[in-house]
């Protein structure tokens, strides 16, 4: 009876409080739309300026490779200064420079030179563009050789196949990662806030003088927010599949179980934060800094953990979202790969047990 009372109270409060509804349902939708439509890590339609100082059939042949590619949006200019200005004003991201002597040198023994200038401010993007340019250039070489009737005999041939995300759509790994972010938000931030609210408004004092046990109070928070968090996850998964065509290659029950494990870890952190701070403002700040931001930055959701410095890599091991992001990306894109899922699940269980246990131990029914 006591549990039922506490849980019903919690749901009524969730329904009446627009801010918890917003965090649980509006935020996921906004984040999902933002990342699904707004943020793309793919380099497509990269604006490039091709400088052709003296146009000829050869240069046209070369530039046609850029015009035909969906990766580039080329514009042709006839002097370098114009191109440089466009690069400086960020109208283009790269310059392909074909000098006036391109056609002549092409047929001389030394061969012709192409200068490629890439805006490296965004290092990642720069590397991608450089790769694309090289691909077009080697394709063009191949074509020339074929036209001359020569067989290109390269000692080694690269046969590229991209697995798991064959179209290289960044959505396919961003959207699963978002689920981790959204569940962190509901699990840790929302719980930290609502528990601190009880302390702040003095209702905790009134609850404690009833025969209710502290673990009932804790369970009365865990269960409703667990359901809310899983609801938020369901919403995100549905949107991911229906709106963004993200495949789910793993099984749904594994997804459910692993999400539950992560949810408990997040709830544990949220409850622990609020049992320490007992103040909504501080609890909110601490929850954002210790759970949400790490889940954003250090989970491998956007930034690859492998390319982080060693120290930061070690740091990511204490972040629950890291394990969950890795599980999610595997389940969505690869399938039930047990060698990934099981160790990550164990890590989640460890973190969840640690925080819930700590909160449990701290929560005796005393004020002081």
């Amino acid at each position, binding site marked *: 009876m*006591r549990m039922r009372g506490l849980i019903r109270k919690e749901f009524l409060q969730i329904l009446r409080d627009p801010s918890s509804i917003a965090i649980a349902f509006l935020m996921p939708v906004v984040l999902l739309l933002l990342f699904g439509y707004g943020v793309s890590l793919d380099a497509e339609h990269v604006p490039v300026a091709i400088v052709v100082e003296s146009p000829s059939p050869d240069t046209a042949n070369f530039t046609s490779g850029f015009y035909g590619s969906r990766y580039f949006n080329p514009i042709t200019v006839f002097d370098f200064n114009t191109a440089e200005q466009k690069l400086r004003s960020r109208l283009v991201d790269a310059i392909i420079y074909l000098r006036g002597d391109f056609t002549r040198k092409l047929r001389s023994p030394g061969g012709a030179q192409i200068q490629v200038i890439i805006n490296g401010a965004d290092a990642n993007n720069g590397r991608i563009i450089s790769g694309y340019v090289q691909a077009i250039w080697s394709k063009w070489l191949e074509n020339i050789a074929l036209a001359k009737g020569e067989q290109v005999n390269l000692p080694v041939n690269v046969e590229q196949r991209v697995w798991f995300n064959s179209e290289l759509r960044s959505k396919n790994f961003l959207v699963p990662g978002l689920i981790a972010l959204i569940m962190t938000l509901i699990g840790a931030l929302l719980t930290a806030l609502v528990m601190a609210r009880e302390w702040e*408004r*003095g*209702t905790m004092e*009134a*609850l404690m*003088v009833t*025969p209710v046990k502290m673990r009932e109070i804790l369970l009365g928070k865990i269960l409703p927010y667990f359901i809310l968090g899983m609801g938020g996850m369901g919403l995100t998964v549905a949107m991911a599949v229906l709106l963004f065509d993200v495949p789910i290659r793993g099984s749904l029950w594994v997804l459910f179980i692993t999400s539950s494990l992560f949810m408990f870890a997040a709830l544990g952190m949220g409850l622990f934060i609020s049992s320490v701070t007992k103040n909504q403002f501080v609890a909110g700040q601490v929850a954002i800094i210790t759970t949400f931001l790490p889940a954003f930055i250090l989970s491998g959701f956007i930034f690859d953990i492998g390319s982080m410095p060693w120290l930061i890599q070690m740091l990511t091991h204490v972040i629950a979202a890291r394990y969950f992001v890795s599980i999610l990306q595997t389940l969505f894109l690869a399938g039930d790969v047990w060698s990934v899922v099981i160790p990550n699940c164990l890590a989640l269980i460890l973190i969840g047990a640690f925080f819930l246990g700590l909160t449990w131990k701290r929560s005796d029914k*005393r*004020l002081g």
Partner: protein
Amino acid sequence: MLNTQRSETGSSNNININEGIVLEFTNVQKIFSSGRLETHALKNISLGVKRGIVTGLIGPDGAGKTTLMRLAAGLLVPDSGQIMALGMNVSTDYLAVQASIGYMPQRFGLYEDLSVQENLDLYADLQGLPKNSRPDRYEELMNMTGLAPFTSRLAGRLSGGMKQKLGLACSLLRSPRLLLLDEPTVGVDPLSRRALWDIIQHMIKEEGTSVLISTAYMDEAERCEEVVLLYEGKMLGNGTPNQFKKDLKGKSYTVSVSGMKKREIQEKIAAYPSVIDAVIKGGRIRIVLDVESPPDIEQLLPGAKVISIEPTPPSLEDSFISILPKRQSKNERKKTDKKPARTINRDHFENSGENVIEATEVKRRFGDFYAVKGVTFEVRRGQVFGLLGANGAGKSTTFRMLCGLLPASEGTLRVAGANLRYAPAAARSRIGYMSQKFSLYGNLSVKQNLRFFSSTYGLYGADRTERMEWALDEFDLSQLADSNSMDLPLGYKQRLAMACALMHNPEILFLDEPTSGVDPVARREFWSRINSLAEQGVTIMVTTHFMEEAEYCDRLAIMADGEILALGTPEEIKAGQKTSDNPEPNMEDAFISLILGKENKNS
């Protein structure tokens, strides 16, 4: 020997109940430590709360009342000593104790986003009230508290008095044998306070409940059968109100004098060494002496025309004031020494007839709800003007409009000669405002708060230094100058807040419920400051819940539902409510009869 017996038998032990003691503290100590600082909240307290009566816990702020309540409810563990409640050891059997007591914390413990009914359901679930007995109990409690028509309203939308009654109803759901109420009447209007006491009396008579109630109101303490007086963690007294008052027999008198202003008389008398206390009450001056002989008015007030001196029965408040160490005496004497140099003839201001505040048909609308429905009044320079009313009467809205914080929807407001509609900034630089919550920066020291608030009013350099020295000296804050304002006792916070509001020497001072929750000693200090400010020509506007404070005002307005029900001097207002049943109403009677009269008219 007896102690070991008790702990062995544990919760099944009923010896205490048979003895008639439901709550017993034996040598209880409680120390709070934060960092290196240790606060002795309770020092060696031993007391017993008897069955079937109301025991009052009184004492100034920081005396340890809330700590004692929380210890009794098992929310805190004593550092030494033993607490037995209903025959059970609170430290070990706290769950069993909590299952059989009712406890209402200071903020009522309600969920504001749940309705009245949902709050009741929650606490019924938590207290394990059987389903089949609920409908009857709900009905009984709702009728008792008068909340029956509001069961579907959100608790957050209830008035202060209704919240307090709902909080009480939630703690009474399972008819507790022991009821602990922690300052249930702070900030609640007199009407609701009366209702609360009726409920408590009813519970005692009908259900045999024992009640421990902490309060800052002396008239409430007077209604308790037993009183415990706490001061700085020590118990200064324990007994019936009559036992407390015994020592003061023949030492209290009321004096009526003509030809002098009451406040002036009161101050002169209060400064006299053998006078313990002097207050204005019902148009007369009530004095308490430390000797058992009628006061020699010739000596106290040379040249005054005495109309009558009558002995009067001592009150608990008299005894409270006489028992508590007088912390302000040094300061008071110092001030009286200084006064002649600064005092300006008050009559000069009063005769000049200059209105400093003028409100004409002022209305304030929020959506289609009128919080203030056309109020008209004026305040003269150097007057103390009181604004009385229950929660939600429109006092705070009126106040905010006068301070230029909120524009009026209709009507004109003139403050210090400036029309607030056109020149709010000009008016604002000439007023000081002290809000209910004191608006201090908790993590700044006393000095830093003073410095900050003076700089917001454009005080710099030598002016500021001089003003800060004045404030530290005038409000007796020098010793605490470097403590964080957060750590100050409530009474000191109140002084600091008032000092901050006075840094720029305002002509008008607005005080929004400045004495809410402050004990009688601190309230006396506070009013003596107000009087001396008024004498210096500062106009003071104050809102209050304390009816006796209304008597200290020169004029006052009683508000309800955004309207002024009565306006005039305290005597005029009381005279207006004379009935054959009550030929000499006090302020509280007058207030209640005005409010009830209005309610009757509405229905």
